[in-house]
């Protein structure tokens, strides 16, 4: 294992200190392990809290700021944060209008956020949670923990975040967040695995010409393994999986997400193919993100996330945002 770390046990805390030093717009509570906006809560505004295992940067701390999250709770690498962090986050961002927890569908995240929500409720903080589960690679949720939460998280955080900034109440935010999740699907393909600092070994192994089709953001297996194809072929595989689950039409928001180890030049090639394939189906890419937004350490590959836009989504997507990883219009 070759990594730019000091010690496996210190990865998250060292990175958080670096994050705090790099971004004065963030306040990083090293004891509670909570990242908030430096300004503190705005009275009357619903606080948006998300969190999950570390190793997916810029998710979630990179999306803390005006127009998106109020707080992020980073866990150990690929390990859910603990309820104490989410409770501390809820206390820190509650401006009297309640707290929305944005939770990716992994057993650990779900259980810890659930406990935190109960604890915050006992303290008189109104907490609602929205589950993100957009990964169509998981076909049979009866025999699994269900569809995993992945790229749609960025869309939910941005669109709900923009609506929260306009003063929407908690119920309205739950509604829009659930609508974004319902209209968004993702599919990932890995060319190479990730190695967590704690284990020191790759999470899975692939032959030289082999790829994992439908990979999860922690390297969970997908639908199958197969030989590598062209960018056009891989884009088609991902898009077909999404389209079969949620027929696409009209205008869409597309994210071609690198997994941490993919050169941007290759992501642009994938985006080119996705846009061409969608156009052939009569679907217009009205908005896009191409880059590293939901990474899996140094995994190589890409995930495709497509959201069927509504007028409201587009307007909220375009609304000003100022975070370390997304900023426009302000």
């Amino acid at each position, binding site marked *: 294992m070759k990594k730019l770390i000091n010690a496996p046990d210190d990865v998250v805390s060292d990175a958080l200190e670096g994050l705090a030093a790099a971004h004065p717009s963030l306040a990083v509570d090293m004891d509670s392990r909570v990242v908030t906006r430096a300004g503190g809560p705005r009275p009357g505004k619903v606080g948006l809290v998300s969190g999950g295992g570390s190793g997916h940067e810029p998710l979630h701390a990179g999306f803390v700021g005006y127009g998106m999250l109020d707080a992020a709770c980073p866990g150990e690498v690929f390990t859910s944060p603990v*309820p104490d962090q989410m409770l501390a986050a809820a206390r820190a961002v509650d401006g009297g209008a309640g707290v929305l927890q944005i939770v990716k569908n992994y057993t650990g995240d779900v259980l810890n956020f659930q406990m935190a929500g109960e604890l915050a409720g006992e303290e008189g903080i109104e907490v609602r949670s929205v589950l993100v589960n957009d990964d169509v690679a998981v076909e049979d949720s009866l025999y699994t923990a269900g569809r995993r939460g992945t790229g749609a998280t960025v869309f939910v955080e941005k669109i709900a975040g923009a609506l929260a900034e306009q003063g929407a109440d908690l119920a309205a935010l739950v509604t829009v967040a659930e609508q974004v999740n319902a209209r968004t699907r993702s599919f990932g393909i890995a060319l190479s695995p990730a190695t967590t600092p704690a*284990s020191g070994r790759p999470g899975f192994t692939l032959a030289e010409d082999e790829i994992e089709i439908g990979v999860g953001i922690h390297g969970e297996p997908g639908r199958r393994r197969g030989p590598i194809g062209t960018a056009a072929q891989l884009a088609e595989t991902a898009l077909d999986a999404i389209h079969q689950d949620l027929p696409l039409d009209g205008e869409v928001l597309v994210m071609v997400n690198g997994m941490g180890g993919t050169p941007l030049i290759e992501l642009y090639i994938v985006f080119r193919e996705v846009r061409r394939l969608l156009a052939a189906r009569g679907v217009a890419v009205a908005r896009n993100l191409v880059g590293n937004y939901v990474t899996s350490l140094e995994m190589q590959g890409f995930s495709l996330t497509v959201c069927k836009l509504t007028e409201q989504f587009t307007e909220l997507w375009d609304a000003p945002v100022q975070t370390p990883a997304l900023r426009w219009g302000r």
Partner: protein
Amino acid sequence: MTTPRHSTILDTAFFTAWITRAAEAVEADRARLSDLDAAIGDGDHGTNLDRGFAGVLRVLDSTDARTPANVLALTGTTLISKVGGASGPLYGSAFRRAANILGEAEQVDLPGLAAALEAALAAVRKLGAARDGDKTMVDALAPAVAALGAAAADGAALLDALDAMVDAANAGAEATIPMQASKGRASYLGPRSIGHLDPGAASTVLILTALRDTAAAAARSGPDVEKEPDGDDGD
């Protein structure tokens, strides 16, 4: 009804000794647990659980626990605060629910212990929504709790009952090897999860074995179990 061979007292010192022994066992087997997890999860079960139990030892060391329930509640709360993932809430809730059952009692008898572990199992089942055969810690814990309960109902001696509990836990954990996971991250492996021991079942065996070994050590050294950690175990 048989008379217990030993008058081991299950008091606050005993429960502290159990948790201490469990923490030592998790630390010693940290790499093995993570290796088991690497096969069907993401390879950090040992690391996470060890971080949690190390925190538990610090808390128990700095807190004056007054009852067995105190010890278990502190253990559960600290595991929830330190472990993360699914195993933090699951083990944490298990210990806290067990503590609730014990109430203010200063000493616990075998039926009381069985009832506490029954409650722990119920907590895990409720929170994790795992059924028998899902390849989770439930597959070790459920038969262990059943064996302990049956032994307690039969009026078995404490050590015999705990032996039966550990045997059942071991058999239950072994039985997870041919199972296909349908809960947690391992579930995404589908058939590829077959052939591996579930790491949660393995850590459950460690914790229950520590309980049995603590009782056995207490029986050997007499009722004063507080001496035990400095006994013949070494470091």
